[in-house]
């Protein structure tokens, strides 16, 4: 879809929703307006989960606690009589939750998965204990949170809540389209791949927590304005857990998912009330719904979007674009990478011992060796993923001591043996994320060139492993690094694909102005592409030179084939 069309569609959708909200505010009975308000407010809370859990893939079980901090701040500002009313208190309440978000985010720099779930649950329980011990400000005095002029009626306040929801939704949609937004979704898949693309993993995690806690704080402030009087019960750990389940079930990483989740929460409760069924059945529904969403790997919003895409017709396969010879950055001269005396030890095991290696600028250099020779350890060491001793210089700049993402930014890119391409991005989004520079559609088409035929709009989850691998290679080179380290890019590729990759790699130094260090088991590919080859065995470089010479070296034959050298 062209961007103009998309903008028109979005505009129409926003307009229709605005009319719907206004219609609801004027036409619905007061009771239903109150319910709709609750739905929208919990929709805001769910959007906060959409960021942290939906996009960044971190299990957060303390969103209601962040909301409680927002609500507490609102009540305190109300007690102090800070001028500006909710218009001012709302963003302040959001900001008040941010330090706590960062506090939880700090351990998350080293924690992930189950550990993070435990920390956040512990935080939720702790905030609950503190709130139960010290009630909300003003509650003892019977002082309820007041609404400013213009928001005093329920109908006005409902529209205000809708406005806040929409603002958050639009802001998140805008962020989602930027490289920054892609970072969160990349983080979900693999921290190593995120760092390898030159993105700071701590920065990405902390920003996700900051944004998420800010939004949760907003929802707490809105709730304070809705209810006036707050109780600890509104934010107990059970609320956080339920919110997590609903967010998973509804797919809160999309705005419509958050809204559906909020509406479901209210509607199910209302239906149960009408039929005289205990309210707690709602949570049973959400628990089952969340488990169902986990089995599918997708929530309601994902299913809706997939259905819409199907209705919109299948995308046609794209034919490969022939390679265009274009004046591109000149291959630099000199040394791209210089390693001296590099050693990697894992406890008592020396994986790499005193390795020296020079990759000339504008060349494709092969690195081969049997399994366990230390190739991947060497790659991890030079790209900053493993501690090592020795010196690593990139185009004359010392890289020692720099973290992985700064090495990537300095122009040292790598790919992985394992499939680490973030599946939540589209092919185009991934390439822009990896390249760290603006790319036009033409740039993309040219870079993919005769490498792989893929529509930039396709989601990576829909692509086969071979295509993902080639996309990862293209992404690393599109960044125009000084050196791209490709770790077994041909593993799992078919014969024709490998040949295409070989042709493409031969042309890569000139097209992208970079050198390539190619680690590969496919010796035909290495022979066809590389100007020089280094061979590793038992953690040492045992031979180096042009491929024809190196592969005739008896030591290399012995390393590979186990042949005895008959001297």
């Amino acid at each position: 879809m062209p961007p103009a069309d998309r903008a028109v569609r979005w505009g129409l959708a926003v307009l229709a929703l605005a009319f719907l909200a206004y219609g609801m505010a004027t036409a619905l009975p007061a009771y239903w307006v109150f319910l709709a308000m609750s739905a929208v407010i919990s929709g805001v809370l769910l959007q906060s989960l959409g960021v942290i859990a939906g996009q960044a893939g971190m299990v957060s079980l303390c969103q209601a606690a962040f909301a409680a901090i927002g609500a507490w701040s609102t009540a305190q500002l109300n007690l102090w009589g800070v001028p500006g009313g909710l218009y001012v208190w709302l963003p302040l309440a959001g900001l008040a939750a941010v330090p706590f978000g960062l506090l939880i985010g700090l351990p998350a720099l080293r924690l992930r998965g189950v550990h993070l779930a435990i920390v956040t649950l512990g935080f939720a329980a702790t905030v609950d204990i503190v709130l139960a011990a010290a009630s909300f400000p003003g509650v003892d005095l019977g002082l309820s949170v007041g609404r400013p002029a213009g928001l005093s009626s329920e109908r006005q306040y409902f529209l205000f809540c809708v406005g806040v929801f929409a603002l958050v939704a639009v802001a998140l949609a805008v962020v989602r389209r930027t490289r920054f937004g892609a970072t969160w979704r990349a983080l979900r898949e693999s921290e190593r791949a995120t760092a390898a693309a030159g993105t700071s993993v701590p920065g990405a995690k902390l920003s996700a927590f900051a944004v998420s806690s800010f939004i949760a704080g907003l929802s707490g402030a809105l709730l304070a304005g809705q209810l006036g009087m707050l109780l600890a019960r509104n934010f107990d750990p059970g609320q956080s857990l339920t919110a997590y389940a609903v967010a998973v079930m509804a797919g809160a990483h999309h705005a419509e998912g958050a809204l559906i989740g909020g509406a479901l929460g209210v509607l199910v409760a209302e239906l149960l009330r009408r039929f005289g069924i205990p309210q707690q059945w709602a949570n049973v529904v959400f628990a089952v719904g969340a488990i169902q969403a986990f089995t599918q790997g997708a929530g309601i919003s994902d299913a809706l979007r997939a259905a819409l895409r199907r209705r919109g017709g299948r995308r046609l396969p794209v034919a490969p674009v022939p390679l265009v010879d274009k004046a591109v950055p000149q291959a630099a001269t000199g040394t791209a990478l210089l390693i001296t005396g590099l050693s990697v030890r894992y406890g008592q095991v020396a994986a790499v011992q005193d390795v020296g290696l020079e990759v000339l600028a504008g060349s494709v250099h092969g690195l081969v060796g049997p399994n366990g020779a230390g190739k991947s350890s060497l790659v991890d060491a030079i790209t900053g993923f493993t501690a090592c001793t020795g010196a690593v210089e990139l185009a004359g700049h010392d890289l020692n001591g720099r973290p992985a993402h700064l090495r990537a930014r300095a122009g040292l890119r790598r790919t992985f043996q394992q499939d680490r391409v973030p599946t939540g991005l589209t092919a185009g989004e991934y390439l822009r994320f990896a390249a760290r520079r603006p790319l036009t559609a033409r740039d993309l088409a040219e870079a993919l060139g005769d490498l792989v035929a893929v529509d930039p709009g396709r989601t990576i989850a829909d692509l086969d492993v071979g295509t993902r691998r080639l996309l990862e290679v293209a992404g690393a080179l599109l960044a125009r690094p000084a050196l791209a380290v490709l770790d077994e890019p041909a593993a799992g590729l078919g014969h024709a694909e490998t040949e295409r990759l070989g042709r493409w790699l031969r042309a890569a130094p000139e097209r992208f102005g970079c050198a390539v260090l190619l680690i590969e088991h496919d010796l035909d590919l290495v022979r066809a592409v590389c100007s020089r080859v280094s061979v590793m065995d038992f953690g040492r470089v045992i031979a180096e030179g042009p491929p024809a010479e190196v592969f005739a070296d008896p030591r290399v034959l012995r390393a590979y084939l186990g042949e005895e050298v008959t001297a």
Partner: protein
Amino acid sequence: MLQGLVSGLAAGGTYAALGLLLTAMYRLTATVNLAVAATGMAGVYVMAALAETGLPYGMAAVGGVAAGALTSAGCGAVMVRWFAGSGAQLRTAVSIAQLIGIIALAYILFGDTPRVLWNPAGAPVGTLAGVVVTWGTPALIALAVLIGGGTHLLLARTSLGLRLRAMAERPVTTELLGIGTRGPAVALWGAAGALAALVLLLVAPVRSSDILSLSMLIVPACAAALAGGLTRLPGALLGGLALGLLEGLLAGSAAVREYRDAVPFAAILLLLLWSRRGEVWDAAR
């Protein structure tokens, strides 16, 4: 001070027992089963309901333990059926959904009035530092040691333990080797539920026995399990005991008494920051 320590022993036994259950389940099923205390809670409430019908305590308790086992086995069946090949994070997230479901069903079935429960181990065993110690305290600590010892034997000495460990680490590979582990896995979940019910039957009469509080015993249990890095049994045992003693100590000081339940969170944070200080990346390579 000594009084505080003695009064914290029962809590320590509880946290250690639940922490050991978490550790055992993490090693054997690759799940941090956040619903484990809730399954025990289900057992307690079924026991209370059975006792109200006039059943003698012993039989009601057996019914409660069976209910805990069934609830947990149900959760395990879901895990085995749909999430056998999933990673620990997803399986833990599923257990969160199960936790919500169990709590909700408990509210539906039993209402939200806390029960007054008869304490089976309420008889005093002696006086220590001026504090009357009931049978519950040694019983809980013994239960914790039993769970720890039993798990150790299962893991180290039996072929079933070996199979379950393989299943937890590489489920697909294990199945491909022709080892059927689904039945034993569900039985293991059931056993964990029965043990959790047993622990909570001893604890619930002396703590706030409402549904949410009992289910949230999972928080200190997690802290205890983390003391052993989720994998080491002795660490979980000692961590749980230490946490209980610390809480007992703080309960003696008027200034922090109200906030002593926040101790587990602080413990969790410190333990994790220390134990994970070296780990940087999400995958080994």
